[in-house]
């Protein structure tokens, strides 16, 4: 039963993410229409064969915008999670492998960063450097560093207390060697889980930021901004809000499910023992 749920989670999650990735990749080669092309004559059309999800108030094809918007979403997620992983993982490993007080110190600094949530950082960054996809990504990335550092540290602490690492240490292996040979491979599962969950959070944060006007600048399609632009038409054309809303939910759900499924698979107690 437990295994089946886990596999179902991974499966459904992968399918949902696959959909988003496919839409994004396909959009590089083909979209039904130019997503940025304004067409006064095709304003607010309902779904038809030509316009699968209809058009928005600028006469732009909603389906094409969703496809290109998937690119924005993935782009933000990849860069933000990338930043967080590249900074957070070594930081956490360092904290886990160094002297107790030093580790503590690093983690306190980590807690301090945690006090600046993504949204707050992004609003501040946007105010300084101008709101853009880039500032949003960096802000979300920095705000996600602490989660990676925490996971990496606790994983590292566990690995460091295993017998084979103790043996390697007494054998005179350098710290760097231990870190790269033993620690990193053993905590990579945990990190992948964290990446998946963080990705979901990044997608949500980007949507909220674009909604507030602190994210992706127009006319580049973004799901959050599509939602924001559709608000005044909610009563008349709810489809305009539902389509990007569902797209956001699909992406978030996908990454959360994948993360959940993988978490069971990479359970720390199992990972360390192997």
């Amino acid at each position, binding site marked *: 039963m437990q295994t089946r749920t886990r596999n179902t989670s991974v499966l459904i999650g992968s399918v949902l993410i696959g959909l988003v990735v496919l839409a994004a990749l396909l959009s590089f080669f083909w979209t039904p229409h130019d997503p940025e092309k304004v067409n006064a004559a095709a304003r607010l059309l309902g779904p038809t064969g030509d316009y699968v999800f209809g058009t928005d108030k600028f006469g732009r094809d909603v389906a094409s915008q969703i496809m290109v918007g998937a690119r924005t979403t993935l782009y933000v997620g990849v860069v933000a999670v990338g930043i967080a992983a590249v900074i957070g993982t070594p930081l956490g490993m360092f904290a886990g492998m160094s002297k107790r007080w030093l580790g503590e110190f690093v983690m306190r600094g980590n807690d301090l960063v945690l006090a600046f949530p993504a949204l707050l950082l992004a609003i501040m960054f946007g105010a300084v450097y101008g709101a853009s996809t880039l500032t949003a990504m960096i802000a979300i990335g920095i705000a996600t560093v602490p989660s990676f550092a925490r996971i990496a540290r606790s994983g590292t602490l566990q690995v460091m207390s295993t017998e084979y690492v103790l043996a390697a240490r007494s054998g005179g292996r350098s710290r760097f060697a231990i870190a790269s040979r033993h620690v990193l491979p053993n905590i990579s599962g945990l990190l992948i889980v964290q990446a998946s969950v963080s990705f979901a959070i990044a997608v949500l944060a980007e949507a909220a930021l674009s909604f507030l006007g602190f994210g992706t600048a127009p006319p580049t399609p973004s799901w959050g901004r599509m939602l924001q632009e559709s608000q005044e038409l909610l009563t008349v054309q709810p489809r305009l809000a539902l389509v990007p809303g569902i797209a956001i939910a*699909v992406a978030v759900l996908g990454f959360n499910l994948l993360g959940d499924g993988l978490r069971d698979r990479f359970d720390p107690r199992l990972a360390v023992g192997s």
Partner: protein
Amino acid sequence: MTLRVVRRLAILIASVFVASIVVFVFMAVLPGDPAQVALGVNATPELVAKTRADFGIDRPLVAQYADWMGGVLHGDFGRSYVTREAIGPQLIDRLGVTLWLVGAGMLVALVIALPLGTLAAVRHRKASGTAISGLSQIGVAIPAFIAAILLVQVFAVQWRWLPSGGWTPPNQDAGEWIRGLILPALSLGLVQGAVLTRYVRSSVLDTLGQDYLRTARSKGLRPYQALFRHGLRNAAVPVITVLGLQLATLLIGAVVVERVFVLPGLGSMLLDSVAARDLLSVQGIVLVLVVGVLLVNFVVDVLYTVLDPRLRGS
């Protein structure tokens, strides 16, 4: 244990200090001149320079920081460049609104999560347990602002049961106050409730698998009885940690929800102040938010120490 709490307190104070410097430096590099904004288009450079001097923003940064922090320690956040009003009382007013919102949101989340999460854990082998888990997954995937837009559309615009936004202070009209709080609290709470449900479920599941509960059950106690008599305290520890993290999320999530519901809380004050380059206000708001998060983390840490039997001895 006392030592641990004292150490935590020292860390808290140090963190607040560092955070205040970070916030200050950040604001100092913001483009846009508050004096220019106040004077509007076509103001002469002389007048701008004079206004900058009036605001005290022509002095060295260190002096500005010392002045600001010195004031903040006495509860004086300075006088806004834009509104020419003292910021402190304004902050307290707005914080009040945000705290009510966060509190109500948390309540909604708990009311959803505690029973559903426990149920999902106890029945995790049954269809209903799986269904709750699935629903909570979907709930997590819906951003608070989408929930907010939908709730307004249904309950305010279509059915006209509840106000679409706005704020009535509780001492002015308690009934209106509650009515105005319902939709924002639901928007915040539903999503957080879904998140929390998952943690409650896994925490209770863990506890159910512990030896002492198995023993209790083998003595003939039903799962709920065993859980309530022996397991709740253990299950509560991780939940409280998450709750703390969530409080921080709610505090920030309130920024968006306040926008949708036009609530005069800290979030809308932050966005307005950023747009108007009311730097002193932004500085004050960010500091309050950050210190708020740090405080919550501190309290969670202390609670953790008190509740966790393994840490209590040390």
